[in-house]
């Protein structure tokens, strides 16, 4: 009984917070985003916070994450440090259009929206909602709106800003857009931002999202991404999560794909105290193709939870999931992958794989690869393994004069590379290889070039 009453009180807390600060939230956002808030708060009231009793969040203790003492501010924050001075991207060779989100708000350097070559629009979501209401309205909350997750409703009610990227018909993005989420403050802080990425017919988007924390306080982010891939559009999304161990991160990504589109997501979780990534994919048109991949490297008391839901709503679609992880020390983790093949989605081809290596007896891993199939002419398969490094392979390397530690690292590196090799941006791929290599060697506790001493 006690958990239920606590849940209610957590919900009540946020309902109260909304009542008391809805004005402030609205003033610092856009009217278009504001129109969704009341509906979302009613939804939150109905759904409540997810609890471990439910199947979706069976292993993730959301309550205790939200119960941490954290500031929630909705006004214009004063950040006294010049972020650009202390933050240097750790991927030196990568030539990107850089956008910063600081504590969930667009980091303003005078220009809220930029027009990139080919008519691509990128910048603050709330600004875009004011300048291009037609564009934003067509997609905003269209894909996340039907979610049954209380945390998504929470985000819709509170999110004030985020990044908006729009590629018009037939436009291919030359330079990838890099979005850096930075959490920095002088006390614990909660932030909820909202991103919207739209690629119209035949357009192409390359987006890199990096999550960082720049001060050693408790942070919680609850973010929502909505991604729309129009007919034959191509989107490559890479996310690198590298926050300190005192931070908690919950991300929701709603990926909507039309006929013939191709969307690839890679989530590389290097560091973070509590990470939960929800990826929802809806294959809404025939011949759409989706690749959802993830790599997680956890140690100490970290918790990493990946949840992937692929909805095959149309026939002749293809989906592929690959999630791999290494759990060290007393880290724990979970993977849930669900493939839903609807009644008419014949000729579906869906594949799912989750592999885990446990390095110690204190590490824990839970894996739930699920299939829910209502069409008969389909090819669906999944595989899940938990184990350790192949002793034979290790012996092979050692018999060739490679010492035990190096041989182990070599094999683990090869194991992780299977995910990394799918990253399309070459400079980024090489850099991540390098980061992962360092991470496996235990040399990476923070990004090398960053001046902040966090985590």
């Amino acid at each position, binding site marked *: 009984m006690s958990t239920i009453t606590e849940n209610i009180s957590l919900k009540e807390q946020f309902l109260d917070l909304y009542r008391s600060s809805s004005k402030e939230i609205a003033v610092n956002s856009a009217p278009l985003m504001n129109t969704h808030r009341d509906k979302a708060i009613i939804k939150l009231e109905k759904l409540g916070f997810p609890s471990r009793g439910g*199947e979706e969040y069976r292993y993730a203790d959301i309550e205790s994450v939200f119960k941490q003492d954290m500031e929630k501010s909705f006004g214009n924050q004063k950040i006294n440090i010049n972020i650009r001075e202390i933050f240097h991207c750790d991927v030196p060779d990568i030539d990107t259009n850089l956008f910063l989100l600081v504590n969930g708000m667009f980091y303003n350097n005078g220009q809220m929206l930029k027009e990139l070559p080919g008519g691509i629009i990128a910048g603050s979501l709330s600004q875009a909602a004011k300048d291009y209401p037609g564009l934003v309205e067509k997609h905003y909350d269209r894909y996340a709106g039907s979610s049954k997750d209380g945390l998504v409703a929470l985000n819709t009610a509170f999110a004030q800003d985020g990044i908006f990227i729009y590629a018009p018909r037939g436009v291919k993005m030359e330079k990838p857009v890099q979005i850096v989420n930075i959490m920095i403050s002088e006390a614990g802080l909660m932030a909820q931002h909202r991103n919207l990425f739209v690629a119209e017919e035949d357009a192409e988007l390359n987006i890199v999202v990096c999550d960082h924390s720049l001060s050693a306080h408790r942070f919680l982010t609850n973010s929502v991404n909505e991604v729309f891939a129009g007919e034959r559009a191509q989107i490559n999304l890479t996310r690198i999560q590298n926050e300190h161990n005192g931070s908690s991160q919950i991300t929701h990504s709603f990926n909507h794909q039309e006929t013939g589109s191709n969307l690839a997501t890679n989530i590389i979780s290097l560091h973070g105290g509590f990470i939960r990534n929800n990826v929802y994919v809806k294959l809404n048109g025939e011949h759409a193709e989706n690749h959802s991949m993830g790599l997680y490297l956890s140690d100490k008391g970290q918790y990493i939870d990946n949840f992937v839901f692929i909805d095959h709503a149309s026939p002749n679609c293809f989906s592929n999931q690959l999630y791999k992880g290494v759990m060290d020390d007393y880290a724990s983790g979970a993977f849930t992958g669900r493939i839903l093949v609807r*009644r008419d989605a*014949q000729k579906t081809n869906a594949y799912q794989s989750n592999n*885990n290596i*446990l*390095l*110690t*007896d*204190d*590490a*824990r*891993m*839970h*894996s*739930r*690869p*699920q*299939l*829910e*199939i*209502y*069409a*008969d*002419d*389909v*090819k*669906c*398969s*999944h*595989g*899940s*393994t*938990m*184990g*350790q490094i192949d002793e034979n392979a290790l012996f092979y390397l050692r018999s060739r004069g490679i010492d035990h530690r190096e041989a182990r690292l070599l094999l683990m590196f090869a194991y992780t590379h299977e995910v990394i090799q799918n990253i399309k941006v070459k400079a980024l791929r090489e850099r991540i290889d390098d980061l992962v290599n360092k991470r496996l060697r235990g040399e990476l506790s923070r990004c090398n070039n960053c001046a902040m001493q966090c985590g």
Partner: protein
Amino acid sequence: MQNEQDQILNEVTTGEYKFGFYTDIEQDSIAKGLNEDVVRMISAKKKEPEFMLEFRLKAYRHWLTMKMPEWAHLKIPEIDYQDHIYYSAPVQRAKLNSLDEVDPELLETFNKLGIPLEEQKHLSGVAVDAVMDSISVKTTFREALAELGIIFCSFSEAVKEHPDLVKQYMGSVVPYTDNYFAALNSAVFSDGSFCFIPKGVRCPMELSTYFRINAANTGQFERTLIVAEDKSYVSYLEGCTAPMRDENQLHAAIVEIVAMESAEVKYATVQNWYPGNKEGKGGIYNFVTKRGICKGDNSKISWTQVETGSAITWKYPSCILKGHNTTGEFYSVAVTNNHQQADTGTKMIHIGKNSRSIIVSKGISAGVSNNSYRGQVKVLRGADNARNFSQCDSLLLGDKCGAHTFPYIESANHSAIIEHEATTSKIGEDQIFYCNQRGISTEDAIGLIINGYTKEVLNKLPMEFAVEAQKLLLISLEGSVG
């Protein structure tokens, strides 16, 4: 050819339930409803010792605090627990001395079912305990088994004759607090089978229980307890049928198995409760908790099930691998047709070192049915070198049914190796074409492919049962195909 195939698949749905007869024999039933008095009445009717009544009442009180589980991928209509009869027994005239004294109608029933109840059929070498509605009717071969020290009798007899054994093991594998239906069963269970194999004894014949729900509106709640002492071996079979009725009947059973050091227990089920008619009316709700514990080192428990009946099946035969070097096995064929729903699978809990388990699950869905595999493999911290391999295949016949797989894999040991594989597909047109090419008609081809698909599991069944199971598959799926 497509048409022909469709036609055959249509015929699949015309397979009729062959055990739907009802036997008109005098029943001693209590009134509908469930309350503490009913629990007391059941206990009194069975002349149980005090400890049993206490166990029942504790379970009943706990049940009242519980809620019906909702996590299964099933649409369960609300069940009115007050609308069922919790005790119904064929009226027994005094104590029976030989088979001749058994109600002839009852014998007729068992003959129809093809159960070798009569002693002259002992060539088939199966010792049978038949449970009709709530009461164990007849146990055969008792004396022959007793010579070896094996106890095989109805649960109520065991309560009276071997109360210490019952007290020691009842509820030790499935406590009454385990789940909603286990609590319900613990409160109102009527009868069942009890089996005890002493140290070093290899049971010379297959033991078998046959369950039948006969009376209307009756719930059947039986309880089976098998204890295998050190280095013993037993193979146990269970079969179930029920008459065709329009209303839904409730079946909530518990099976507990205890395997001590180096013991081996094989438990096979052919479940063929009435599945309801083609419109989904009637049928049995089958909510069963089956669990075995490999308590001693080197012990082994093997579950084999063929699930073809019931409107709703909710069943997860599990193994707790507590001893070192223990083995758990689960082989399952689950068939759903028309409006049937099944959510079935297993749990393998690895506690001991070098424990190993294998799961082979074959689901077949037809009509508008839904068939789910739900299984958990859990490796605890101390289970060094634990090993699991799971394979779950689903076959879809028709485009209106569903096949689902929900595995839960949890590991807390770095030396454990767990593998899970699943595939979902339909019978390939190329496979049928290949058969046609060689002069095999489409109907035979489908039968052939289904047989081949389930062979891996059916092979694990004892001979007599394998034949029956194969026939059952033909009845429930292939209709006139076979």
